[in-house]
C-alpha cells in the first residue's frame, strides 16, 4: 500500500491558517467568497465528490435489524452535527450533503455499502459503524480505497488504522480507571466478571482480570459469559450469591442486558446492598432496563446526558429540539456527534478534503465544544478523553459521581495486558 504523503511546508501551513482565520472573520460575506479562497481544484486532488458549493459525505449505520436499537442514536447525532455545521456555513465554504446507507445489522452488507460509498459516490468521509464486527468488515475496504471513517463506539482496542478515527473509548480508558475508582472508593477487593459471549466483553474482561490481579492485588472470584440473547440469569445470580463479590463487573449487552438487571432486582440484589459496575449501560439501554432495576448501580463511561457544562447543555437542548423531548443521549451518541466536528476541524487544518492530508492533520486536533468537555486526537487516531462514573437513578438518568481529573491517553495496545 504505497501512499503519497505530501506534507505541507510550514510556511504554506501558516498561510492556510491565516487564510482560514481570515475567512472566519469574514463569515458574514456570501458563502461563495470563502469557497473561492479554496478553489475546488486545490482542495480536492483525489477526485472526491467535492464541488464549488458542496461536499458529499457518507453515513453508514444499521437503520434496520438488531443493531438499529443502538445505532439510531448515532445516526441522529451525526445528522445534528452536520446540520449545525451547515448552518454555520459548511466546511471550507461548502455545504455538507449526506448519502445515508443502511448496513442492516449485517456485516457483509456493511462491506458492500462502504464500497458503494467510496468507489461510486467518492464521498470525502464516512461516519459510521457501531459494532466491532461491522468495523472489521469495512476496514480493509477503507484502507484499500483510502477512505476516512469516523467510528463512535467504545470498543475492545487492539486496532489502529490511518483510515479510521475512533471517537469512542478504547478498552483501557473505560475499564482501568473505573476499576481503580471501585477499589479506592468502594473498597472492592473481590470481583465477579460477567459478560455476553463475544469479542468485546471477553477482551474487556481479560484486561480487567489482568488489572485486578496484577496491579490491584485483588481477587477475581468468578468469570462468566452467556450467549447473546440469553434471557435467563437465575443460576448465574445464585453463583454470585455464593461467591459474595465486593463488586459485580458487568458487560452484558442487548436484550440480555434487560433480563440481567430485571432478574438481579427480582433476586433481591439492588444498588443499596451490592456494588455493581458496568461497561454497557448508557441512557440508551436504560429505556429498556428501566430505572427502577438499575437504581444505585454504577456505569463507567466518558459521557452522561446529565453532565453539567455549557457545551452539553447546548447539545442536549439542540438534540431534544430536533428529536423530541423524550429523546435520550447515551455515551456513543455523544461520541458520534464528535465525528463530523473533528472531520471539519481536520479539513480546515489541512486546507483540503484529500484523505491523506486529513489523516496527517488529524493528530493533535482539539475540539473544545465537545459535550463531554475537551477532547483531542492522539497520534494513534483515538481520542484523549476523561473517564467518568455515573450512578443510575430511579428515573433512568445518571448522576455523575466521579470523573478523572485529567484526560486519559488512549492506549489501544496496552502493554502488560495481552
Amino acid at each position, binding site marked *: 500500500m504505497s501512499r503519497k504523503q505530501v506534507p505541507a511546508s510550514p510556511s504554506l501551513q501558516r498561510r492556510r491558517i491565516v487564510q482560514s482565520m481570515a475567512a472566519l472573520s469574514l463569515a458574514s460575506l456570501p458563502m461563495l467568497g470563502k469557497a473561492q479562497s479554496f478553489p475546488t481544484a486545490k482542495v480536492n486532488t483525489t477526485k472526491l465528490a467535492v464541488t464549488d458549493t458542496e461536499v458529499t459525505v457518507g453515513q453508514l449505520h444499521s437503520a434496520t435489524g438488531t443493531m438499529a436499537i443502538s445505532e439510531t442514536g448515532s445516526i441522529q447525532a451525526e445528522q445534528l452535527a452536520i446540520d449545525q455545521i451547515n448552518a454555520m456555513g459548511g466546511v471550507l465554504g461548502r455545504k455538507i450533503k449526506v448519502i445515508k446507507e443502511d448496513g442492516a445489522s449485517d456485516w457483509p452488507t456493511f462491506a458492500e455499502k462502504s464500497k458503494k460509498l467510496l468507489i461510486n459516490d467518492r464521498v470525502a468521509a464516512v461516519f459510521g459503524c457501531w459494532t466491532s464486527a461491522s468495523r472489521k468488515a469495512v476496514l480493509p475496504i477503507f484502507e484499500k480505497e483510502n477512505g476516512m471513517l469516523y467510528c463512535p463506539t467504545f470498543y475492545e482496542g487492539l486496532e489502529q488504522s490511518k483510515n479510521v478515527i475512533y471517537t469512542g473509548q478504547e478498552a483501557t480508558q473505560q475499564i482501568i480507571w473505573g476499576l481503580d475508582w471501585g477499589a479506592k472508593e468502594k473498597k472492592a477487593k473481590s470481583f465477579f466478571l460477567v459478560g455476553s459471549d463475544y469479542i468485546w466483553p471477553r477482551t474487556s474482561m481479560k484486561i480487567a482480570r489482568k488489572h485486578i490481579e496484577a496491579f490491584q492485588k485483588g481477587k477475581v472470584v468468578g468469570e462468566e459469559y452467556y450467549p447473546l440473547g440469553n434471557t435467563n440469569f437465575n443460576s448465574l445470580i445464585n453463583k454470585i450469591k455464593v461467591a459474595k463479590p465486593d463488586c459485580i463487573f458487568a458487560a452484558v449487552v442487548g436484550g440480555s442486558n434487560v433480563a440481567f438487571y430485571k432478574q438481579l432486582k*427480582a433476586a433481591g440484589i439492588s444498588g443499596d446492598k451490592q456494588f455493581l459496575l458496568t461497561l454497557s449501560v448508557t441512557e440508551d*439501554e436504560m429505556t429498556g432496563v428501566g430505572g427502577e432495576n438499575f437504581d444505585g448501580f454504577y456505569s463507567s463511561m466518558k459521557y452522561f446526558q446529565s453532565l453539567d457544562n455549557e457545551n452539553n447543555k447546548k447539545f442536549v437542548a439542540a438534540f431534544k429540539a430536533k428529536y423530541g423531548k423524550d429523546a435520550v443521549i447515551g455515551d456513543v451518541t455523544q461520541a458520534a456527534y464528535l465525528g463530523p466536528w473533528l472531520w471539519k476541524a481536520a479539513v480546515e487544518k489541512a486546507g483540503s478534503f484529500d484523505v491523506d492530508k486529513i489523516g496527517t492533520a488529524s493528530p493533535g486536533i482539539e475540539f473544545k465544544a465537545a459535550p463531554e468537555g475537551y477532547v483531542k486526537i492522539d497520534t494513534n487516531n483515538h481520542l484523549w478523553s476523561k473517564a467518568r462514573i455515573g450512578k443510575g437513578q430511579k428515573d433512568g438518568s445518571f448522576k455523575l459521581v466521579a470523573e478523572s481529573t485529567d484526560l486519559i491517553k488512549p492506549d489501544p495496545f496496552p502493554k502488560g495486558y495481552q
Partner: protein
Amino acid sequence: MGLSEMFNIGMMQGFAGLSLFSVLLLMGLGLAIIFGQMGVINMAHGEFMTIGAYTVFLGSTMTERLAPGFMPFYFPVAIIVAFVFAFAAGWLVEWSLIRHLYKRPLDTLLATWGLSLGMQQLFRTGIGPKEVSPTLPDWLLGSWAPAAGLDIPINGLFVLGLTALVTGLVMLALYKSRWGLRVRATVSNRPMANAVGINTSKTDRLTFAIGCGIAGVAGAAFTTIGSTGPTSGSLYIVDAFLVVTFGGAASLLGTVASAFGIAQTQSISEFFLSGSMAKVLTLSLIVLILMARPQGLFASKVRR
C-alpha cells in the same frame, strides 16, 4: 459456608429451575397448539409474543398518563388485552396467509419467516427501534424473602402461576370442550372430520388464533423478566421450537415434560459450568436423545 446458607442456595437454585421451566412451557404452549396440532411451522411465533409485550407497554403508558391510581391493577388487564390483540392478529394472518398454504407445509416456514421479518420492521418503524420497559406495578418487583438470605423472585412466582393457569385452561379446552374435540378430530383425520360435518377450515382459524393469543400472553408475562424491543421475539423462538420438538409434536404432555427436562438440565448445569458451556451441554443432550427418539419424548398416535 454454613448449612443454612447451602440450604438457601439450594432452594433458590431449585426455584431457578422451576422458573425457567415455566418460561419455557409458556413460550412453547402456543406453538405446541399451532405446530403440534396443525403442523404449521410458525416462525413468526416470537413476533406474536412481541405483540403481547408491546400491549403491556401500551397499557402501562396509558395507565400512567390517564389513570395513575389504577397502576397496581393494570397488569392482569393488560395480559387479557394482549391475548385479544395477538388472537386478532393470528386470525388475520391465518385468513390472509396460512390457509392458502396448508398443503405446502415447508412453504409456511418461508411465509411465516417473511412475516416475522415484516412484523419486526413494523414494530421498529411504528414503535421505535429502542427497547422499552413497561413500568411494572410495585407488587411485581423485588423478591419474597421467607427467611434471611433466601430470596424468591416475585416475577418468577407470577410467571409460574400464570403458566399453571394457562396450561390448565389449554388442557381443559383441548380435552373437554367442543372446540378441542373438533381440533383433535381434524388433526387425526381431516377428510373424515369434514365428512361428519366439522367445519375444518373454521377450526383451523380458531386454533391458529388461540395459539397466537397464548403467545401474546407469554410475551406479556415476559415483560417482567426480559426485554421488549422489535426483535425480542427472536430471543425466544429457538427455545420454543426446541421445547415443542423435543417433547414430541402433537403431545401437550410431551411439551410439559420437555420444558421441565430442558429447564432442569440447563439450570443445574449453568450452576456448575459456565453459561455458554451449559447451553452446549443441554443442546448436545437434546440432539442425542432426538437421534435415538426422533418422534420426541411423547409421541401421540396420529394418523397423518
